[in-house]
């Protein structure tokens, strides 16, 4: 198959030391912390009470609104609290979480396993995927059912299964593809049905030959599924870049893959779909790579959701030295976290503890020399230097004119910048500024409406008062007249 090339990109050191290490199941920890918001969209709404005993796979919180995902219990135990707990988020702010004290019995909830998932309709498949709480497992955590539903609105001609895993260090998808290719293929077939589409490509970077051959063997019987080796280049695993590589089509600015008939799902999402439809298992665990120079024995672990990152590190023998930086996710796009007391959620693909030697020395930023390396490297074709200059001077609207909203925050520009300018951070800041302005505008529009409504209310009340007074006066007059009439009658008689 002919491949296309996206502009720019880089090839950072891979550091994929855990490629050969099989997936190890992580024992159930004593306590699990399940944030109600593990996905893009509205937070889930708890349906259990504190003190209640829950079973493994039981629904803890239901989805709220069209773009949301439910949360299920990763093990059986008692709900000890529904309280704020540190979120796996760069802000380190707390978020409402359900805390479960595990009882170690691992008792499954009675779930109804569908007869044959291939007899279900397209709509039923995406409903079940939604009910299982499945979100995009590549990191963005967008509810998968919403994306599977797009088949009814758009005509989807190609489903791309993203096995790129272009981030350094991470090998969780690689191991999943090597060890469980059968279920992945099964999941892809179900996704094809949901999307009413009959062509799927599994794109795997060429640095994962074992995964490629395992998948090729597994999909031999299914001509609609094809494994494609793609060049090893960051950010290959980014949705838009992957679509471009495989189809040569560019997703329009501000648009979705579905606009050009392509949907991208992660391999781990395909696996989760298969687990949900074949075995009735909701998304309660995921594979996480624990790696980095400060980790004693790096590993690929299958972790119950809600386990603290700290416990993963301990399971891997702890830290060999104080890490220079701790991350959730990969080193390019992952979230830097101040401490490891944060839970593993649906979108966490790695826990990294990087030592000083692994960190590229980051001298303090120097002035931009306009060398244009960021422009060459930007996979979207933007001008990072121009956007950053505007963001720095608080002119975010001007940055918008340079295509700020098309920035995928991949970090390639910051990676290549010889002046160590934190370009990506400037773009994150600028995007936040725009969001803040939008919210402020909404609030002031609302205030204006409220003020108007109050004016209307005051006028109405005044009018009502007047009316009431007039009515009372009329009544009084009528009474008086009646009395007078009666008197006159009396006098006359």
């Amino acid at each position, binding site marked *: 198959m002919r491949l296309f090339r996206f502009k720019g990109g880089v090839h950072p050191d891979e550091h994929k030391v855990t490629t050969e290490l099989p997936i190890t199941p992580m024992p159930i920890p004593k306590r699990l912390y399940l944030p109600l918001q593990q996905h893009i969209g509205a937070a889930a709404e708890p349906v259990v009470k504190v003190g209640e005993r829950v079973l493994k796979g039981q629904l803890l919180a239901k989805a709220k609104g069209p773009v949301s995902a439910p949360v299920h219990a990763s093990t059986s135990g008692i709900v000890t609290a529904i309280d704020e707990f540190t979120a796996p988020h760069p802000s380190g*702010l707390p978020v409402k979480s359900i805390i479960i004290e595990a009882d170690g019995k691992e008792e499954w909830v009675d779930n109804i396993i569908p007869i044959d998932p291939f007899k279900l309709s397209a709509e039923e498949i995406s409903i079940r995927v939604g009910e299982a709480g499945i979100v995009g497992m590549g990191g963005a955590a967008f509810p998968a059912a919403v994306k599977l539903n797009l088949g009814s609105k758009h005509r989807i001609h190609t489903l791309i299964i993203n096995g790129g895993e272009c981030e350094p260090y991470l090998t969780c998808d690689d191991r999943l593809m090597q060890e469980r290719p059968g279920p992945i293929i099964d999941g892809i077939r179900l996704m094809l049905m949901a999307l009413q589409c009959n062509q799927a490509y599994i794109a795997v970077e060429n640095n994962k030959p074992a995964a490629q051959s395992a998948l090729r063997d597994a999909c031999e019987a299914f001509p609609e599924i094809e494994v494609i080796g793609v060049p090893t280049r960051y950010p290959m695993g980014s949705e838009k870049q992957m679509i471009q590589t495989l189809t040569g089509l560019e997703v329009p600015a501000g648009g979705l893959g579905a606009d050009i008939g392509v949907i991208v799902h992660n391999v781990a999402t395909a696996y989760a779909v298969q687990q949900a439809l074949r075995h009735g298992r909701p998304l309660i665990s995921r594979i996480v790579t624990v790696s980095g120079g400060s980790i004693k024995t790096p590993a690929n672990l299958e972790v119950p959701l809600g386990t603290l990152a700290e416990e993963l590190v301990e399971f891997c023998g702890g830290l060999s030295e104080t890490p220079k930086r701790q991350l959730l996710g990969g080193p390019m796009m992952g979230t830097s976290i101040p401490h490891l007391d944060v839970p593993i959620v649906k979108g966490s693909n790695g826990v990294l503890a990087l030592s000083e030697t692994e960190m590229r020395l980051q001298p*303090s930023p120097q002035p931009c020399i306009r060398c244009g390396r960021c422009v060459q490297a930007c996979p979207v074709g933007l001008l990072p230097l121009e956007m950053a200059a505007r963001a720095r001077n608080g002119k975010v609207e001007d940055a918008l004119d340079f295509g700020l909203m098309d920035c995928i925050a991949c970090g390639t520009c910051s990676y290549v910048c010889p002046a160590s300018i934190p370009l990506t951070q400037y773009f994150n*800041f600028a995007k936040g500024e725009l969001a803040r302005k939008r919210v402020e505008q909404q609030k002031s529009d609302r205030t204006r409406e409220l003020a*108007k409504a109050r004016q209307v209310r005051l006028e109405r009340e005044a009018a009502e008062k007047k009316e009431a007074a007039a009515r009372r006066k009329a009544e009084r007059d009528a009474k008086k007249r009646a009395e007078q009439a009666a008197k006159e009658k009396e006098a006359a008689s």
Partner: protein
Amino acid sequence: MHAIVALTVLGLFLGFLLGMAAKRFKVENDPIVEEIEAQLPGTNCGQCGFPGCPAAAQALASEGAPVTLCPPGGKSLAETLAKMLGVSFDASAMDDGPAKLARVKEELCIGCVKCFRECPTDAIVGAPKQIHVVMQQACTGCGKCEEVCPTMCIEMFVPPTTLPEWRWPKPQHEVVARAA
């Protein structure tokens, strides 16, 4: 017959006179004032120091009042006004702390209904001798309720940042060119 003609002529003449007077002595109403007023919150909260939004709009248009005068409008309003009036302003000077909201200390509230009569956005719910409550989604933080409360049971507080409201900070390290 004479009377009809005389009255018609008189009517036409006086009408013409009035029409001319209306043209000649027209009161100049600056359209920009109305435009500015449409942008202001319209709550007449008085935080700007002018008696209500129309007066503030007038001051902005003709007396050179600063575009940053409206705290409930915030930075986005200041920017819109600056654009309308063609002036520049110092955005950093506006960051005088996060927005505040009102909150009723329930143990002190006597249910006097004074505050909710005063609230320009009807954000306070209550009834005589019932504890009042501020609906925070509707509160603009103007502080009018705080002023009228006889028991000082209304406090202005800074609401904690929630996850969806959190924004990436601006990179701190200033880039300084080194002297060669």
